[in-house]
């Protein structure tokens, strides 16, 4: 392994594990029926929603090469399929990959 890549991996894993570690440390003092637990529960869902929506609206990496319009079409139809299929998670997921690949291929 080259040293730079190895260090980057170690630094990335330390940055990631630190949030998990301090999460356990904090949890040792928190009761699942307490107010603070309910607050953390809300924070967990909201930060996750913030991340997912940021990735879809301001993506990094490969998705950056698709337009807002394309992603909006995919999001709209994925949610529609999710409800039509009685909240099945597989159909909208597969649909999103296929339709985005096709849109990118034909619209560019």
């Amino acid at each position, binding site marked *: 392994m080259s040293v730079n890549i190895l260090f980057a991996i170690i630094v990335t894993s330390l940055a990631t594990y630190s*949030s998990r570690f301090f*999460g356990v440390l904090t949890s040792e003092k928190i009761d699942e029926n307490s107010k603070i637990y309910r*607050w*953390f529960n809300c924070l967990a869902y909201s930060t996750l929603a913030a991340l997912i929506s940021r990735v879809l609206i301001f993506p990094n990496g490969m998705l950056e090469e698709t337009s807002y319009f394309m992603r909006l079409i*995919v999001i709209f139809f994925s949610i529609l399929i999710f409800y039509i299929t009685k909240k099945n998670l597989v159909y909208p997921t597969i649909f999103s990959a296929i339709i985005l690949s096709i849109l990118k291929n034909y619209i560019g």
Partner: protein
Amino acid sequence: MINSRIFLKGLLSVKRFDSPAIALGASFVAIGALLKNLGFTIQESIFSTFLTYALPGSLVMAESMLIGASLLNIFLAVWLVNARLYPMTVSLMPLVMHKNQPRWKYYLSCHFVAVSSWLIMKSNYENVEKENRIDFWIGIGTSTWLIGIFSTILGYFSADYLNKDIMIGLAIVNPVYFMCAMIGVMKTKNISIAIILGAIFGPSFYYLSPEWCILLGGVLAGTIAFLIGENNVS
């Protein structure tokens, strides 16, 4: 030490038809291919998923390396994007902690906290006795983690056969899956408000600070949702 029956139950909970394993696998295939294109060896790619096991963090690492960022910058960028794991861990661990279980299990298994495993655990923990929940969680975490590692290997070796359009298709799978999963868990008022406001505030705060938007938007949205929920209770 570990209740093998409960561990196995957790391990097999990813094999449901609509399991997050699909989204997880697809996105780690994309990561494997991306790491290969960045010049990682197969060992480095496996090592990366093995040690980090958090998709946005791996993406940020890859992008930071592309622009030649320093190790300190990589640390800060990854910490910011993965800081969500802190409230996720705090909202999970009190559900699995039990006085009869050793502490090392919590500190070791927190490595498995990621969106997919967290969502599986949150929807299933009530079906397992509290004393055994940590073993159930270790089972879920082990299987999702292994899926991540094997998908990285698959992505690495299939990188030459995946064209750009397929890679883009794979990249959308993860956010779309979890967007639908989040809509699916909107069953109580405060969780629904937390998710809706988080989805609005996250990108809105991007204009203020692209690095801090998830944390700032998430904390504000979660706090508002909590306060609304508490006012309704009292």
